């Protein structure tokens, strides 16, 4: 192999390595049911660390994960997250380059309830900065849609 060829190969390997470093990022979504009970059930493992904070904001003491879905994030590739049969999310992600974003993404999120689109939003998400969407009220409690980037 010629020396310029070797140098090109080395640079390509470096570039691919950098891409691979982010190829493992995933986005997790869940539909949560929040309610108030006298004896709240144990917090689901997915919400440990968040349930208390969510309780302060929403005013509920019990959180149940009704369903969840996880997808790998690919730059500019549309993904469907279907945590339950009635709620789905269409996600298109672009990696945020600013340091403040802490390895996060700029997401174009579309929330659907059955076939009806409820909301279309652009949001910045980082691994330790989840996003919650206050959904409709159900007879059993408040529905909340959670989104989290998982490295």
């Amino acid at each position: 192999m010629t020396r310029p060829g070797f140098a090109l190969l080395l640079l390509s390997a470096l570039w691919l390595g950098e891409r691979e470093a982010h190829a493992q990022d995933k986005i997790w979504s869940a539909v949560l049911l929040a309610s108030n009970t006298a004896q709240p059930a144990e917090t689901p493992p997915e919400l440990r660390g968040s349930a208390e904070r969510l309780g302060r904001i929403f005013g509920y003491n019990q959180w149940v994960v009704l369903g969840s879905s996880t997808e790998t994030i690919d730059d500019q590739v549309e993904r469907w997250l279907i945590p339950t049969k009635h709620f789905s999310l269409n996600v298109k992600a672009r990696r945020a380059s600013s340091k403040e974003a802490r390895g996060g993404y700029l997401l174009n999120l579309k929330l659907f309830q059955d076939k009806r689109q409820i909301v279309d939003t652009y949001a910045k998400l980082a691994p330790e900065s989840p996003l919650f969407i206050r959904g409709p009220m159900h007879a059993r409690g408040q529905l909340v849609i959670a989104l989290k980037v998982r490295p």
Partner: protein
Amino acid sequence: MKPFEERYTAWIDGQMSEAERAPFEQELTDRAAAETDKHEVHRLGDLLRARGTAPQLMSGDFFNHQLQQRIATEQPSAPVRERQRWWSWSIPQIACAGAACLLAAAALYKGVIVSPEPTSVTAESTYFAEIVDVRTSEPEIYASTVYTAQDNVTVLWLEGLDYLPATYALQ
């Protein structure tokens, strides 16, 4: 009154008036040394006047060339390095350059873009998820954003959604 240096120069040059000269000479503490000074200055002046013109060089370029050669031989010569083209680098040189690039890229990534290590959930964080833009599909639905930096929680708060009865299956 003029300063002493000025009067001394005038005395040496013989430009002092008779009226001034006698008191000035009285002022001199070492008259003999002053007379020697005066004599030396006059001698130097005579010499300069006698040889006022510099000898003309008949071959100036040759003189410059000789001078430059002499300077060059007297100065220690710096080692001359042959300039090396990048494509003629050896494999170890390329590997070193690659490693340097990798280090620079890693430093940039770490310093400018992001720290990839996740911090603990309870750790204080200045960043939280941010809603950049939001559009609801129906006018009855109203969206607002609730940030709580203290809890590092961002909520997209939707109002006006239909109430779901108990018969609506959740799973």
